[in-house]
């Protein structure tokens, strides 16, 4: 069969099974089987079995359940409360005051958790009721949470960067370190916007409470942050310094999180079991998608679709900017209906040859793709951060999406910034000696 027709049939088939509500992992499997069948391959089952075995035993993937479990453990501790109490005395002088707690807590929690939905849920559970009680603009409280919750994807450790690293065969350690500066930049953008907004909308902030907080009080509050900051420095420092691989850092991180939960008295047999089962659910879901995606990539390779597509796009002689622009649009559209990990595994097989052909750095592209996925986390109809915040506040999803709109624009600005100044991404990984 002609390859163009074949590609179109497969793409349509994928759309139909996904829209019908078949599980994403099984949809990928179905498309791969169908494609191989159409091409007359008679070893489909054998290919599936060997590719699944290879994909599910990959050493670098072992970091995935570790980081997920670490987040699940910390989610069940008093961490979010400690973050709130430790940070708020320091931020009371900034315009926007406690709104910044939302952003900074999310940024800090993102450095121990790999998921944006977990970040938004953990922090929002604590901060949203508090901000409401003190009379902050609810829309802004929801918006800052929705926006900065997406930091969980970018600030290392990040589940989605592990997935990308495995799919694109790029060093996960370098990807993690590459995400650090853009993550910080986003935090600054968010805080800057909030401060400016607060200066113009004083009537939507609580007044009073101008009593100054003494330095000793601030320092005492800061002590609450010590355990988590220690854990962050420990995990990320050991990756950056090249002392451990990301997988080893993840195992140490789980151990550290367990110790931290034990010391703060929030670890019980029940919470341990729940955290473990939670980790099983997420890692099995992602694991099966990865297994199916690996098989699909193999099938695509057999059919020659990525190579043909790369040649076709190459023939259009787009410049790098146009290529990225079209890809951004494609990802945002896909992200409206699929979650971030599915978007990455679905597209990487087909898109990577294009990226390599255009001489785009694969680490830079990983960070770029994560930023685009962050956008899709806060766009309706399917955006997991929106779902989480909807569940937390009971507000309807369109309200949350509108509240998050300024932060959507800020992430877009961040994408432009890393395109103009790719060094924001590539500087730190280049200084790494190992990994």
């Amino acid at each position, binding site marked *: 069969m002609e390859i163009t027709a074949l590609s179109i049939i497969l793409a349509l088939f994928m759309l139909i099974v996904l829209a019908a509500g078949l599980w994403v992992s099984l949809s990928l499997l179905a498309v791969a089987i169908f494609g191989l069948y159409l091409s007359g391959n008679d070893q489909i089952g054998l290919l599936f079995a060997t590719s699944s075995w290879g994909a599910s035993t990959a050493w670098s993937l072992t970091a995935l359940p570790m980081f997920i479990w670490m987040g699940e453990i910390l989610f069940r501790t008093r961490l979010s409360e400690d973050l709130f109490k430790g940070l708020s005395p320091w931020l009371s002088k900034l315009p926007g005051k406690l709104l910044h707690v939302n952003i900074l807590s999310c940024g800090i929690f993102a450095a121990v958790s790999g998921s944006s939905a977990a970040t938004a849920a953990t922090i929002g559970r604590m901060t949203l009721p508090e901000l409401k009680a003190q009379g902050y603009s609810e829309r802004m409280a929801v918006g800052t949470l929705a926006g900065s919750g997406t930091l969980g994807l970018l600030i290392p450790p990040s589940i989605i960067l592990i997935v990308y690293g495995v799919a694109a065969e790029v060093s996960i350690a370098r990807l993690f370190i590459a995400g650090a500066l853009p993550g910080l930049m986003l935090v600054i953008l968010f805080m800057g916007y909030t401060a400016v907004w607060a200066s113009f909308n004083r009537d939507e902030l609580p007044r009073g409470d101008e009593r100054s907080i003494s330095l000793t009080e601030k320092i005492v509050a800061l002590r609450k942050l010590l355990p988590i900051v220690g854990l962050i420095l420990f995990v990320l420092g050991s990756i950056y310094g090249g002392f451990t691989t990301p997988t080893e850092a993840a195992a140490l991180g789980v151990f550290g999180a367990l110790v931290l939960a034990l010391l703060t008295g929030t670890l019980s047999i029940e919470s341990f079991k729940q955290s473990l089962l939670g*980790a099983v659910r997420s890692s099995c879901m992602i*694991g099966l998608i990865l297994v199916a995606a690996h098989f699909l990539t193999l099938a695509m390779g057999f059919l020659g679709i990525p190579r043909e597509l790369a040649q076709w796009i190459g023939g259009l002689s787009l410049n790098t900017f146009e290529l990225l622009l079209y890809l951004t649009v494609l990802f945002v559209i896909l992200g409206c209906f699929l979650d971030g990990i599915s978007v990455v595994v679905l597209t990487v097989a087909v898109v990577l040859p294009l990226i390599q052909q255009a001489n785009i750095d694969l680490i830079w592209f990983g960070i770029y793709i994560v930023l685009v996925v962050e956008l899709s986390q806060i766009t309706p109809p399917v955006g997991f951060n929106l779902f989480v915040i909807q569940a937390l506040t009971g507000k309807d999803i369109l309200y949350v999406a509108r509240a998050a709109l300024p932060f959507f624009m800020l992430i877009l600005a961040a994408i432009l910034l890393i395109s103009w100044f790719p060094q924001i991404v590539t500087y730190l990984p280049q200084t790494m000696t190992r990994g």
Partner: protein
Amino acid sequence: MNSIRECFYLSSGYGAGICIILIMLIILAQIVGRMLGFIVPSAEDFSGYCLAAATFLGLAYTFRTGGHIRVTLLIHRLPEKAARVAEALVLLLALGLTSFMSFYSIHLIWESYVFNDVSYGYIPIPLWIPQIPLGVGCVALNIAVLDDFIGMLRGRDPSYLAHEDELKLEES
């Protein structure tokens, strides 16, 4: 009857959980070993096998609790009757696909056994042994899908629906 069923799915979850704990212990042992100057033989192989076991053993539990993601935008908006028909068709397709997975994962174990495949690592391990959880996990998922499909035909709601609207934490 119900308790045996729940026991089966829960053991799928805990089986995977134990493998995750094993991964942590193997990796920690490797780090400690490096500091004290001994080597944990084939640590990468073993943690890889545990990862495969964790991924596949937990599939049934994850399915049962609505952990596998899908696009529910259309199916949740259909009128009730049509939604049930669509759900049954999706389950039938899933049944076919998981049967395919079960058949060929068992086939893989069988072939590794017949051809005496061993791992390349420091300790040669007959590959069929770590491949067993793959087969077991696929069959368990197959049973879970079949269970819900039969329930659907008898007019019960599938198990995963109850959890799909809940707040999910680790989507991405």
